[in-house]
């Protein structure tokens, strides 16, 4: 049995610099996970227009079996203001599955795979070593080469060459981190993906899209009325969300590249809880136009809305299973809100949760083998996972106000909102419950996170 290592770090500072400057490396000597959260806090403050703020960052927990990896600064990297290896290291650390091994004092520093002396790095506790170069090209672009070496088996695992512009360094670093993550864990990395979330500052609501590490936030909608339930189309091109701008819930779909949008469900009554089909062509929504909150499936342009089930109870929070053949949803048909599965072809409905009187917000794992959800236990709202094969429920978070879980596209991390006393923060937990991270940003609420797909058109 692995023990969870708890590390609590509190960082407080006053700052009055611009968010973009903060986002570089404001605290280069801090562990990368802390830098991640500073970056995310900077994002939030930047859009809130808060010039000075006291921030508190807490990092809790880590994997019991993190892979020790040395990431040697690339040859020539120091000539570039924004390097590559710092971002790669931050990405890998944040996943909780890697532990950075000190590279200082190794002379000469290895640059190519064949220069990595396995014994030396094994002596430092490393299982893997990353080396590389950054070389300016005559056309102004930069050639980035990297190699990943397994120093236990003493074999090269990957080597890549990228030819990029300076504005692509960050994206290149995330791609390198994705390659390393996949080679060493067997699962695809999610460092190149994006997230969406909603901020509330005073009465101002904003829906933002940012890189998975919190960088480069873009406001895609702002409103003086609530915004909620952002949902990425699996093809990465659009986001569906619920807006109250006409004083009631209406579902919109917005194209991310053009910024244009359409009210796709604006029927009499309430329109909410959008969820995309795996092929990005249809949406499941909850409508009340025919009485009660009921599930409908429509085309993504809002046409041809068809009721998929008739009940006298609440049916809402539909989410398509990855095969598109069934949806999970929340219903109070049994007297308390519980999670059910509707098979679309047959109309068969099966209750999936039995433990407790409040189990809601199901989100299937990408492999279809289970789902994460929110359960209430003694007044605490916690994120939990359910495995279809074993029917085992594992509680992943402590609560007390955890909601809106969203799975990374590789199924390994759950991003969620932690609402306490009306203030919201974002937090992430690994789907085995071991790695926990959270962000505390006073005076602004961050909520409704949605992890985007691998696709990034």
């Amino acid at each position: 049995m692995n023990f969870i290592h708890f590390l609590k770090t509190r960082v407080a500072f006053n700052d009055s610099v611009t968010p973009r400057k903060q986002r570089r490396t404001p605290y280069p000597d801090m562990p990368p996970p802390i830098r991640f959260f500073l970056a995310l806090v900077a994002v939030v403050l930047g859009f809130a227009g808060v010039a000075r703020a006291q921030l508190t960052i807490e990092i809790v927990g880590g994997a019991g079996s993190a892979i020790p990896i040395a990431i040697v600064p690339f040859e020539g990297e120091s000539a570039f203001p924004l390097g590559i290896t710092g971002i790669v290291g931050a990405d890998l650390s944040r996943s909780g599955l890697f532990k950075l091994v000190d590279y200082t004092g190794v002379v000469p520093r290895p640059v190519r795979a064949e220069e990595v002396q396995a014994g030396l790095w094994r002596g430092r506790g490393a299982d893997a070593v990353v080396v590389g170069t950054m070389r300016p090209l005559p056309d102004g672009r930069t050639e980035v080469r990297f190699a990943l070496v397994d120093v236990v088996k003493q074999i090269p695992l990957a080597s890549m060459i990228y030819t990029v512009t300076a504005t692509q360094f960050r994206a290149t670093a995330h791609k390198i981190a994705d390659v390393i993550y996949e080679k060493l864990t067997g699962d695809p990395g999610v460092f190149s993906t994006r997230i969406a979330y909603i901020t509330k500052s005073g009465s101002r609501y904003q829906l933002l899209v940012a890189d998975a590490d919190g960088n480069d936030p873009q406001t895609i909608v702002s409103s003086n009325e609530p915004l909620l339930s952002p949902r990425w189309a699996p093809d990465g091109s659009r986001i569906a969300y619920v807006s109250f701008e006409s004083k009631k819930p209406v579902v919109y779909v917005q194209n991310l590249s053009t910024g244009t949008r359409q009210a796709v469900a604006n029927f009499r009554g309430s329109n909410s809880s959008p969820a995309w089909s795996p092929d990005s062509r249809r949406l499941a929504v909850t409508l009340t136009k025919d009485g009660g909150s009921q599930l409908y499936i429509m085309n993504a342009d809002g046409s041809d809305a068809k009721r998929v089930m008739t009940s006298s109870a609440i049916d809402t929070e539909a989410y398509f299973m990855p095969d598109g053949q069934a949806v999970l949803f929340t219903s109070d048909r049994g007297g308390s809100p519980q999670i059910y599965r509707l098979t679309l072809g047959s109309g068969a409905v099966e209750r999936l949760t039995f433990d407790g009187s409040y189990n809601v917000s199901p989100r299937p794992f990408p492999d279809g083998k289970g789902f994460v959800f929110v359960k209430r236990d003694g007044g605490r709202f916690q994120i939990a996972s359910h495995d279809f094969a074993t029917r085992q429920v594992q509680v992943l978070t402590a609560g007390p106000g955890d909601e809106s879980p969203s799975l990374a596209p590789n199924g390994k991390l759950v991003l969620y909102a932690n609402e306490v006393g009306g203030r919201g923060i974002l937090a992430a937990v690994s789907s085995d419950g071991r790695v926990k991270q959270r962000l505390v940003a006073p005076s602004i609420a961050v909520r409704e996170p949605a992890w985007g797909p691998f696709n990034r058109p």
Partner: protein
Amino acid sequence: MRKLLTAAIVAAFLAGCTTQPTQQAPVEEKPPGTAGAPQPGRPGAATTGVPGSGVTGAPTGPGAGGVPSSALRDPNNILSKRSVYFEFDSFTVSEQYKPLIEAHARYLVANRNARMTMQGNTDERGSREYNIALGQKRADAVRRMLTLLGAQDAQIETVSLGKEKPKNAGHDEAAWAENRRADMLYAGE
């Protein structure tokens, strides 16, 4: 649901008074890829209008059995009371709201062109989306009583604000009780 007495049928004199459409909340959009804070009115930003209620209200003139719309704003008239409160996790309308609901039913019967939006609300605990459904159930429960008393279905649109628009921003039992609520709004208000 228990049966309530049917309201007295009164003749309605309809005046040709048009209400203002609901005020639109300002909304800006822009595509990602443009840096910086949101800038209203910048090129490329588009605002999609949302249709107003399109509803025409028609308060009756005084006398002849009609109920004047001024009664809705008279603090001494029960019609100025608009809120029905609910217990935790419940959508059952308590007996104490019977006189209030009967009064509004009488008004809707007497003023067939009057239109009402019933907004359901919940306290802050639990899933945002599930709370939208719970608030809807509360609004629907009040509407059902109004229609049993003679109001027409088409007169009342029930919507839910879930936990998104708390009347009391507190985080204790008293605040939660105040936020478990259905509000009656007449068109134009």
